[in-house]
């Protein structure tokens, strides 16, 4: 978390809303551990990561929707086939990500 605080500060000081995505469950051995974080600003900029790369863009989409809705959500990403492996989620399986507006 420490490594993304400065960028979140920048966004908040610029008056932008921010959403936070956190890995809350890992089935199999995923590239990023439980608690790994991705922050997303209302204009779609991101910092941090929740996977080796392949679910980041989907997570940004969900994060923007969560900001619109003003409510948290729990999302599951299943990565089972070889293609997914190749795009970077090195160890397969499923991850669950909790996505919330940073309004607390």
């Amino acid at each position, binding site marked *: *978390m420490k490594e993304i605080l400065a960028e979140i500060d920048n966004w908040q000081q610029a008056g932008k809303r921010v959403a936070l995505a956190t890995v809350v469950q890992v089935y199999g051995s995923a590239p990023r*551990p439980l608690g790994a974080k991705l922050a997303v600003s209302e204009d779609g900029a991101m910092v941090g990561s929740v996977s080796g790369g392949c679910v980041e863009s989907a997570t940004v989409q969900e994060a923007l929707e969560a900001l619109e809705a003003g409510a*948290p959500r729990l999302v599951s990403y299943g990565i089972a086939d070889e293609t997914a492996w190749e795009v970077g989620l090195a160890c397969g399986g499923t991850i669950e990500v909790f996505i919330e507006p940073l309004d607390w």
Partner: protein
Amino acid sequence: MAELYHAVAQAIRQDELCAVVTVLSGDEIGRKLLVRRERKVEGSSSAVAAAGSLGHTALDQAALARAAEAMEARRTARISLPVEEQEWDLLIDVHAPQERLVIVGAVHIAIPLVSFARELGLYTVVIDARPIFATQDRFGHVDELIRSWPDEALQEMKLNESSYVVTLTHDEKLDTPALICALNSPVGYIGALGSKRTHAKRVAALQEAGVSDQQISRIHAPIGLDLGGRSPGEIALAIMAEIVQVRNRSKEAGR
């Protein structure tokens, strides 16, 4: 609004151990509780609910107990907690200070030791005032290379329980002041390279400097697990293995 986040961000910035409990599903989704440690007079500490709430007093209390365990184990966990005839789906997100290995003496053993520590995710610092040892060539892989006297450098660092200090200089004049500095801090591990004979001399020097025997007993010497090798790589591995073992045993015991 944003008060809880700012408390969390502040704790993390100050390298303080803390946990944020979040309700992940159900009616209370998104509710949070911040758990920090309150240090008591005699040095021990206990976890306290510092801010926020999960919406029910009994739930807050049960979550606090589980958060305290997770903090001691330095392990983020997803749990299902039964309180008031409901199963609560919670994340206990532990924010632990970055572990740091501080190596006094830019000697040959320090080179593989830095590699091992980095592989394990530790932040690495090497301190040596001697310019011919502390070269970028030899230590291009260290996070921080400090060219100054070890005790001065150590005094300026905020050594905490997640800091581990190792002295390797082979030189009493450098090692002993560094050890005194480390012993005056709550570091999680102190190890000193040298034979039993060297260590006996070192103990005498520390006693003379007024360090108590109880404090001296915190020093791991001879340093490292007994893996039976003599090469720099083997000694570095033995040291790294000992640090990990000591750290994990402290976690299990609860600090």
